[in-house]
């Protein structure tokens, strides 16, 4: 049975994790470990694909006699789990392949290798878990393993603080999930998902569970306003782990939301859909605006993950709203859009993090203001990064466009929703989605343009070298997946049919058999898209133009200094920087969202001091939600600090007082 095979794969990963502890001293340790995780993930990926495509006989459940004595550990693979296993193991295989090359530059492999394998195993287990205890245990294992990876380079500035914040947010999230499962299990304590499904909670409890699940899994996914740890922690890890955390672990969090909200909660309510979609819309715009303000390449990518999580949640929210109103085909469309975006984002975000890792390896820099001109020194990395940038900016013919297009189509069928709040909310969410898509393009013009184009802004960028062939190969494979999923989306949509059938009660119309591989979400007269044909026509038109020009136009080409309107300046410092590129957008959006303030000091004529400009950005959400909590905790801790330095008499008095108080409580209780 497929499940046994998957569990053996997980076991193998755990064994690799244990074996990596003593083996980390070996010179070839990283090659061995990443080779092992690559082969195991590839095997698990193959099994998961088979499970999703063949369905039926390969799916199943299993109970192992570990964990809580009266419960055991339940595992189950269904269509939803199979889909997320594909996402997890594709990302894992990519990160392992990349790690074979990237890991050679690791100065402390002992701090990375054991946790890397354990992290992969834990993410697989979360998706396979079929009872609350196993789910929470493996969820916490996943958090801890990734925390250890974030702390791998704990001496670097900022990493320890990032790890601390991550630990707090992760424990907080798990606490919320614990409470959610406690409510789901009810007083009888049926912690197996089977039992929860059999007895869905009452409306009030369901609302509480939804809120707790959104807090618990949403904080892991990076839902605004619980995203604050994500842009600090994801970039702090080694780059292939950043790719896993951003591309895959956030998707495991999405899996948690889908499993609880769509599967365990039973029939959805429309306001749940409204809430989820609104959170998604706000998350998308906030994420991309933060990303635009960011000059650290890896942190920019991490903020962009927040944006894409928002897009996924818009799809999920619409699916809930449609499902609550019994509009099953529409729910299937929205859910397919969300899940397809889950897959797409995991691919291109991994690709982009691998690209940023390649830049980091060859220049030692993450700050875009120090980079530039890398396309001349690292042409292959630059090409792959360009494909990833186009895909994440939702440009046809790549995959990001298809899932956003499907989300738009879902929005366009939503006037049929009867609730008034939704009628007002959904167009606003559509506007937010459109805005975030356009801003994402601006963001990636900046990310690619400032890093790879132009002239190098530092010696490190000037002397950069192309990275090893393992890393390049990984990036090219993922770039190819981006294109294939973009031009042949029909097959991917069809593969998602069993998932939507089990969760939304319907599926999108079969796409694979349509003429010319067109995708038609609702009806031919309504809308259709054909990435393959579009790709071919554009290639044909470009080829025609190129052919005509090379036949009839002048082919002469002369190299010279840049024209720059007659004012060429030899210094690369005169180029546009990341800061200057995003300055107009900062002026338009930043004054509200970030309370951006610019201070310019220009010394009077004759004064030789340099002119200075300071930009202050404040995270309003941090000020509103987190700063007060941190203030209260600090205040209480300060007050309690006094208790540490009392005399022995005072302590004895305290103990006596506490004893009396407890006895009183007991007396009153009885």
């Amino acid at each position, binding site marked *: 049975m497929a499940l046994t095979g998957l569990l053996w794969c997980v076991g193998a990963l755990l064994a690799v994790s244990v074996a990596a502890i003593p083996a980390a001293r070996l010179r070839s340790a990283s090659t061995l470990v990443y080779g092992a995780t690559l082969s195991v993930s590839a095997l698990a990926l193959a099994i998961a694909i088979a499970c999703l495509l063949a369905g039926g006989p390969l799916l199943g459940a299993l109970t192992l006699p570990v964990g809580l004595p009266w419960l055991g550990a339940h595992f189950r693979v269904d269509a939803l789990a199979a889909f997320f296993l594909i996402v997890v193991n594709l990302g894992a295989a990519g990160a392992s392949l990349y790690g074979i090359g990237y890991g050679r530059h690791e100065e402390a492999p002992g701090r990375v290798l054991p946790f890397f394998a354990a992290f992969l195993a834990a993410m697989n287990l979360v998706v396979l878990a079929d009872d609350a205890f196993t789910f929470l245990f493996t969820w916490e294992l996943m958090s801890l393993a990734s925390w250890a990876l974030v702390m791998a380079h704990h001496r670097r500035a900022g990493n320890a603080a990032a790890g601390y914040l991550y630990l707090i947010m992760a424990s907080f999230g798990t606490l919320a999930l614990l409470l959610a499962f406690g409510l789901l299990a009810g007083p009888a304590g049926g912690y197996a998902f089977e039992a929860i499904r059999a007895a869905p909670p009452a409306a009030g409890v369901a609302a509480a569970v939804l809120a707790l699940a959104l807090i618990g899994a949403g904080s892991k996914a990076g839902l605004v306003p619980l995203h604050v740890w994500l842009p600090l922690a994801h970039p702090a890890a080694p780059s292939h782990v950043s790719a896993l955390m951003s591309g895959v672990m956030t998707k495991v969090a999405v899996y948690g939301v889908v499993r609880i909200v769509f599967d365990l909660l039973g029939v959805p309510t429309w306001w749940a859909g409204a809430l989820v979609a609104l959170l998604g819309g706000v998350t998308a715009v906030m994420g991309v605006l933060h990303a635009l303000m960011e000059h650290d390449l890896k942190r920019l990518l991490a903020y962009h993950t927040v944006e894409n999580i928002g897009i996924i949640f818009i799809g999920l929210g619409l699916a809930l709203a449609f499902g609550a109103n019994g509009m099953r085909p529409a729910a299937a469309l929205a859910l397919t859009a969300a899940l397809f975006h889950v897959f797409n984002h995991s691919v291109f975000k991994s690709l982009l993090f691998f690209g940023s890792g390649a830049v980091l390896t060859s220049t030692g820099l993450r700050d875009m203001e120090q980079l530039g001109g890398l396309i001349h020194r690292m042409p292959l990395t630059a090409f792959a990064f360009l494909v990833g940038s186009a895909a994440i900016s939702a440009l046809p013919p790549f995959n990001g*466009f298809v899932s956003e297009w499907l989300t738009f189509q879902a929005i366009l069928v939503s006037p049929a929703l009867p609730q008034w709040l939704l009628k007002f909310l959904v167009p606003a969410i559509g*506007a937010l989605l459109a805005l975030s898509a*356009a801003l994402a393009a601006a963001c990636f013009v900046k990310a690619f343009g400032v890093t790879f184009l132009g002239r190098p802004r530092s010696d490190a960028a000037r002397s950069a070298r192309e990275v090893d062939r393992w890393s390049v190969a990984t990036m090219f494979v993922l770039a190819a997946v981006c294109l294939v999923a973009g031009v042949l989306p029909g097959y991917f949509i069809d593969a998602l049919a069993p998932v939507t059938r089990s969760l939304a009660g319907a599926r999108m119309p079969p796409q694979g058999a349509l003429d010319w591989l067109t995708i038609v979400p609702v009806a*031919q*007269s309504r809308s259709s898209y054909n990435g393959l044909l579009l790709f071919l026509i554009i290639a044909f038109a470009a080829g025609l133009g*190129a052919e005509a020009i090379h036949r009839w136009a002048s082919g002469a080409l002369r190299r*010279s200094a840049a024209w720059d309107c007659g004012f060429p300046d030899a210094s690369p410092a005169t180029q546009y920087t990341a800061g200057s590129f995003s300055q107009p957008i900062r002026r338009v959006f930043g004054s509200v969202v970030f309370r951006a303030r610019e201070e310019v000091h220009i010394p009077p004529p004759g004064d030789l001091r340099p002119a200075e400009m300071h930009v202050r950005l404040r995270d309003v959400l941090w000020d509103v939600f987190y700063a007060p909590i941190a203030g209260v905790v600090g205040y209480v801790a300060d007050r309690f600090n006094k208790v540490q330095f009392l005399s022995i008499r005072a302590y004895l008095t305290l103990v006596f007082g506490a004893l009396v108080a407890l006895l009183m409580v007991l007396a009153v209780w009885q």
Partner: protein
Amino acid sequence: MAIVLDLFVQIAQMVLVLALAPLFTGFVRKTKAHLLRRQGPPLLQPYREVLRLLRKDVVLADSASWVFRVAPYLVFATTWVAAALVPTFATGLVFSYAADVIALVALLGSARFMLALAGLDVGTSFGGIGSSREMLIASLAEPAMLMVVFTLSLLAGSTQLSSIAEFMQASDVGLRFSLALALIGLIMVAIAENARIPIDNPATHLELTMVHEAMILEYSGRHLALIEAAAFLKLLLYVSVIACVFFPWGIAVSGQGPVAYVAGAGVYLLKLAAGGLLLAAFETAIAKMRVFRVPDFLGAALMLGFLATLLLFVTMAR
């Protein structure tokens, strides 16, 4: 047989937009000059410009990479394909089911993405300023355009441009407030996207407020010719979209005979002339605005589109 006819219409359309685009720009320039009591360049001047550029050498900056050299071809190809997907004289284009209006907006987004990258490629401050401002304008114009698209698609029940045109032509749509809002929004977006006054000045690259011309400052020779041709096509595309959606009269519907096609082409030319006259008059009458006023202008377009969509959401019972 029908597919052959559709294919013929499609190819005719691709050739037609390519051939007409420079003429339209020349017409607008000539009209503007007349309004300013100048003689103005001849109508065919844009063709001559493109041909002259094609004959010239390319002078390429030392720091330019392959992105700079590939971008013109991709920009031209995507814009051309996008323009060919808009029904001009007849609906029922064979490729129209490959890309709907949302994909059309995204295609133009792809062209802009490549061009903005090319602006950053050489590493000069002019290119950077152009790219940065182009993306600022796009970040508001694209959502505004999508909101307009939402309005039209909700009304017509389709995101296919051909279906929308047929719907607007055939059924009794009547005067709708949403449509008026969408029309104004779309015109504002078209002005911004084509770098026309008051957003940008297509006739100069000597102002500090320039956007599009700054971005392509380093281009020369055949590369510049392609980019110019793409700009002509884009202007024609927007006018065609407005014409085919809001003024669909005379467009031949798929299956009608060759007479309808010829008539459709004639009506299309008349519509273009009207559009060109209006654009020239508008540009002559208004002054260019500061760059940081542009977000207000486009924000208004976005709000109009949003209101139009919202009204439809609220009033539609389907």
